[in-house]
């Protein structure tokens, strides 16, 4: 039976984890928090930002702080699925007999950084996405289960779209959050220069949480108490993104082709639970839902032609939904 003391200990450890990450990553508090939320929920994240904002550094630091196995896959157009999941290779044993042996790909890690995922072909993308969804891979009729925790952090560059393969909506929907990395402020940039200006690898990151503790926290967060009005609020928020919904704001009706899927509502609730845990609360709050509203929904809204043509940002549409739908 869980005790408050244990909860507080785990929460404290996560606070230490955040502090450890922030000792390396300058700024990006919200990003760090959302990444940790994704980690607590055991879900996969899509990070979008221009190159050089510290995405890889963030994931690597996280892996080190948690003592987890980290892998990075740089997606390129010629990247093959076997490059991700692994392949069967012919090996010769000591007796000279040859046999096939499965060489595990980088996906067999706890934290996988799929860098610039939109640069790989859809076939390769699908291989990764299947692994993300099933948490297992099948090669030559043999299934290999991925070890928990398993988390994919895919990145994509919003610029340089030539020669890329944008992820289809159905596959984007499988990402728990889409986290936007903004450019650091001047102060943050100066701080980056101060800390990392020596050309050396950043200071050694201390492991503050074990894999088992992470799994314990994941189980704890999954059953975090959430009252029915919060679930109703999450459902109403998601439902309001549908153009056919009576509660849909004007922008949704005007510029949205498809609203958020039920998976978005699940992401809201799960993310809210994790957010409540990180906030030191013992129950989920409206504020937790609101905190994860944008990363949960922003990649799940598909604008119509008019919306794209007029360049209506999805953030603007979500802003209207957020303002119009009030908890009742």
């Amino acid at each position, binding site marked *: *039976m*869980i*005790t*408050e003391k244990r*909860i507080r200990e785990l929460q404290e450890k996560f606070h230490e984890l955040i502090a450890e990450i922030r000792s390396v990553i300058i700024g990006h508090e919200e990003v760090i928090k959302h990444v940790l939320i994704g980690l607590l929920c055991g879900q996969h994240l899509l990070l979008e930002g221009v190159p050089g904002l510290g995405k890889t550094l963030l994931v690597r630091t996280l892996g080190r702080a948690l003592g987890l196995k980290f892998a990075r896959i740089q997606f390129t157009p010629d990247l093959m699925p076997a490059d991700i999941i692994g392949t069967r290779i012919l090996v010769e044993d000591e007796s000279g007999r040859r046999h096939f042996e499965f060489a595990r790909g980088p996906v067999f890690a706890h934290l996988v950084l799929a860098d610039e995922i939109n640069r790989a072909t859809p076939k390769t993308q699908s291989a990764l996405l299947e692994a993300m969804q099933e948490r297992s891979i099948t090669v030559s009729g043999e299934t290999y289960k991925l070890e928990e925790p398993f988390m994919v952090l895919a990145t994509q560059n919003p610029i340089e779209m030539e020669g890329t393969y944008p992820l289809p909506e159905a596959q984007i929907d499988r990402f728990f959050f889409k986290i936007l990395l903004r450019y650091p402020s001047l102060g943050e940039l100066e701080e980056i220069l101060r800390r990392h200006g020596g050309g050396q690898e950043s200071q050694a990151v201390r492991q503050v949480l074990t894999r088992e503790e992470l799994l314990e926290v994941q189980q704890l967060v999954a*059953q*975090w*108490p*959430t*009252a*029915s*009005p*919060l679930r109703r609020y999450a459902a109403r928020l998601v439902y309001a993104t549908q153009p056919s919904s009576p509660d849909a704001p004007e922008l949704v009706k005007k510029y949205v082709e498809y609203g958020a899927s039920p998976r978005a509502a699940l992401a809201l609730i799960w993310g809210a639970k994790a957010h409540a845990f990180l906030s030191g*609360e*013992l*129950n*989920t*709050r*409206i*504020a937790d839902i609101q905190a994860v509203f944008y990363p949960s929904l922003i990649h799940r809204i598909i604008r119509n032609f008019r919306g794209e043509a007029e360049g209506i940002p999805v953030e603007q549409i979500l802003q209207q939904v957020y303002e119009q739908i009030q*908890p*009742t």
Partner: protein
Amino acid sequence: MHSFETIRVSLERRKRLVQGSALASWALLGSFGITALMLLGSTLGIWGALPLSAWVIGNLLVGALAFMVGWLRPINTIELLFRADRQWRTNERLVTLYELSLGYGPQEFLPLLERQLNRLSVNAAQALPFTSRDKWRWAVVVILALVCVSLTSFVQLGALFVRTEPDRSGATAQASRESQRASQLLEWLQTPSAELAQKLLSVRERLEQARAALALNPNDPRARAALQQLHAELIQEQQRLAPPLPSAEEEQPKRSRPESSLVEGSPGEPRPPQRGTSEALALNQLLQSLRSVSEQAQSLSPEELQKLLEQLRETNPDAAALAEHLLQMTQTPEEFRERLEEILRKLEARQALREQLENLQRELESALMPSEPQVEREESPTGFPSAMTPREESSPQAQQEGQQGLASEAHGIQSQERQEEGQTSAGAGRGTAPLDPEAAQDLPDLSQLRERSRELSVPGSQQDDLEILFEIVTMELPQGSETPWSTTPVQIDYGKVEALLDMLEIPEELRDAVRQYFLSLSRQR
């Protein structure tokens, strides 16, 4: 009960209060609106006054009922606690706790959240305040209530100035009684006076004839019978001349002021001896009161006349009722005075007739003076055993005939004449055949017996016995006999008379006379 339950109960109570208050305010808004409209209608005279207590109690009942309905309406506790969470900024702990307490979610979090709540200081009124709409609605209700109170006060003040009679139903009933009484008096006045005058003339002629006959023979039985008949007729005429008695309903309220009544006693009761005097007084008062009204009516305005009638109602209700009735039946003051004069003329005629009747009565009484003992005998109560034979006692027919004899005074002179004409030989011993007048003249008169007893100057005790004897003698006479000479010869139980004579202390001289009297009766038989 831990802190969460306390908070939940207080919140539910507050919610019920707010619900009840809101519903009560809506209900009172409607009911006070309707009340105000009704009071407005009362003010404008569209309908009757609405008493303050009635609408106040009615509205209070409506408000209380609505409050109870609102109080008892089901409460969505989750919604209530969620709202409280939002108001108190308790981070949805209350609603989460409530659902955990219902068994939803991980139960291990329940004590953890309760411990957090113990440090919470809450105020239910702050979480569920009355909305501004509620406050405005209550303000309108209060304003409407004040309007209703003002309208009620206005109507009541208006009623005080306009109408002095507090009880409309009582005034209506009184007016109805007065109208009935006036109709009764007018109907009485419709009896033609000429007919009464003719009747009195006839009575006077017959009185003169009887007096002439008595002058020739003081014991003339026919003359005496005629006088008795006239006496009865005069009593009847006296009753016709008297104003009618008020009905029982009219009489009831007058009991509280007997000085204003025309007559005493109810219609079913026998009239007291002084009735004739009181009736004359009542007639006189009625006449005087109406004459006074007639005299003053010429110079009074309608309002002053109404006041005069109000005063008259206290002193002479009959006069007031008559005048009020005439006032309502007539269109103009002149017509009213004409009708009043007509009534006065009729009343004066009645009064004149009454005076004539009283004169006649006095003359009749003086003419009847010698036969006074017989009159007393008729009025004396019976109670002695009958002297009739057992056969006669057992005969219902004989009893009936005896009663007919008692009522002969009221039957008129015709029946007396019929008896005198040809029924002398009829049924001896059955008490039906009258005595031959010539033979009856030989009988000793009871008055002579009395005179004789007076002459003897018997002492007190013997005098009492004598009176008893006279009573017995009277009782032994056949019933219906006016005088000894008109008695019917009956079977006298002489033995009983002798026994009584032995028992009583009767002087010897008188004993012989009594014996002689009864023996003569026996001889006649």
